[in-house]
């Protein structure tokens, strides 16, 4: 087993599943760990991405802002997940802001090492393709949600996503991040989010207690307008 702490972390990640320890060791030889405090930016849009990034610990949000004060959260990254694959492969500047929403540790693997591994390792290529494809699907869903659905529908479908697949009955979910971040993710103002949550609880579709939300009537929530 490699002594390199970066390699030890990388070996546990989905992106390196099926890749030999030796190759993971080589790929992460020049990798570095970046420690972030909550609120720190790993990178801002247009800045140099430190490579293909994997969140070793903590949580992080990715966002774009087409205009000042119009932030749009692309997604939240949880520990063990990678991000920035597409930009790293294409060697372009960061297409998003990456901001820690809790204390976090990011493993950054330099682009050259990623490309070299992609030339040599089938399992890595396959994992990377899966990640890129999943990301495309997520972006398409985001575009569709932004273009076509209205804010109440976006909130309702977000809550249903949090609740998971199994349907009927009461279900309690808790918002994984602050309401401000959730509002950004849904592309609405924080006040709008609060109003929408109030509307839904007035209609007895949900009950809200801070970040804890109980879904009272999933069927009607799914059809909420």
């Amino acid at each position, binding site marked *: 087993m490699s002594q390199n702490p970066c390699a030890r972390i990388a070996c546990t990640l989905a992106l390196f599943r099926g890749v030999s320890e030796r190759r993971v060791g080589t790929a992460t030889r020049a990798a570095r760990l970046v420690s972030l405090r909550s609120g720190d930016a790993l990178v801002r849009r247009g800045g140099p991405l430190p490579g293909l990034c994997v969140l070793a610990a903590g949580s992080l949000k990715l966002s774009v802002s087409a*205009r000042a004060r119009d932030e749009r959260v692309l997604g939240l990254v949880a520990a063990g997940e990678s991000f920035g694959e597409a930009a790293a492969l294409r060697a372009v500047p960061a297409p998003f802001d990456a901001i820690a929403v809790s204390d976090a540790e990011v493993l950054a693997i330099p682009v050259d090492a990623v490309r070299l591994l992609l030339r040599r390792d089938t399992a890595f290529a396959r994992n990377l*393709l899966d990640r890129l494809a999943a990301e*495309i*699907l997520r972006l398409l869903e985001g575009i569709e949600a*932004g273009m076509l659905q209205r804010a109440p529908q976006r909130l309702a479908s977000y809550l249903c996503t949090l609740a998971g697949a199994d349907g009927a009955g009461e279900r309690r979910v808790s918002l994984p991040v602050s309401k401000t971040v959730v509002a950004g993710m849904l592309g609405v103002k924080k006040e709008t989010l609060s109003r929408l949550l109030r509307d839904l609880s007035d209609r007895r579709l949900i009950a809200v207690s801070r970040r804890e939300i109980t879904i009272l009537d999933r069927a009607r929530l799914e059809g909420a307008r």
Partner: protein
Amino acid sequence: MKAAMHLVKGVLDKLPLLEGVSADAVRELATQSAVVRSARGEVIVRRGERVPGVYAIAFGSVKTRLPRPPGSEVVLGLLGAGTTFGKTAVMLGAPSQLDVVALGDTMLVAIRASCVLAMIERNLRFARNLALALAERNQALLAELETGKLPSAQRLAAYLESIAEPAAEPGRFAARLAVSKTLVAARLGIKKETLSRLLREFASDGLIEVSGRTIAIRDVDALKRIAASAPGASAPA
């Protein structure tokens, strides 16, 4: 049969996705491919349906759209000869997120999904080409997500800049609309009249010169400034 095989191989040989991939591998993909012909307006792939494979456009063009009631579709992309679609759905083994519709008489080659997946396992060059293609798509969709909410003048400026190519004279650029203005308008999510008005405004400001579908770009820097401009400064002064 032999003629069809020849045709398929000819199309695959020219595909950027297969650049640098060994002749043997291309031949193998060709044996697992079929020619598909679509007439104008025909839906080649429907949202929610399984995609039989990766499609390569031999000639003609297609649009990809998020399906909505007629008249309010959202066109996400316009693809021409030499490009491919269906890669994401094949990778994920998932149904298509998009409708793909032929814009004119179009000939395609469909490479069977199982063969594409098997080739990823065996041919690293193919896997790498596919990864780069998906990364490019990622970047384009991210840009779409970002510009989706911009005022229409900024969207048009960004679009023109993205399709502009260097013209014969050094320092000059030209953009050629590959499709009708109605479609470009749908692509940008604006009304056709708005597109026409914006093109007129850009022209009278000396930014562009429109002649049919060809747009000579006179001031690419000004266009870039509009594309990146702050709210309130969206309309060219």
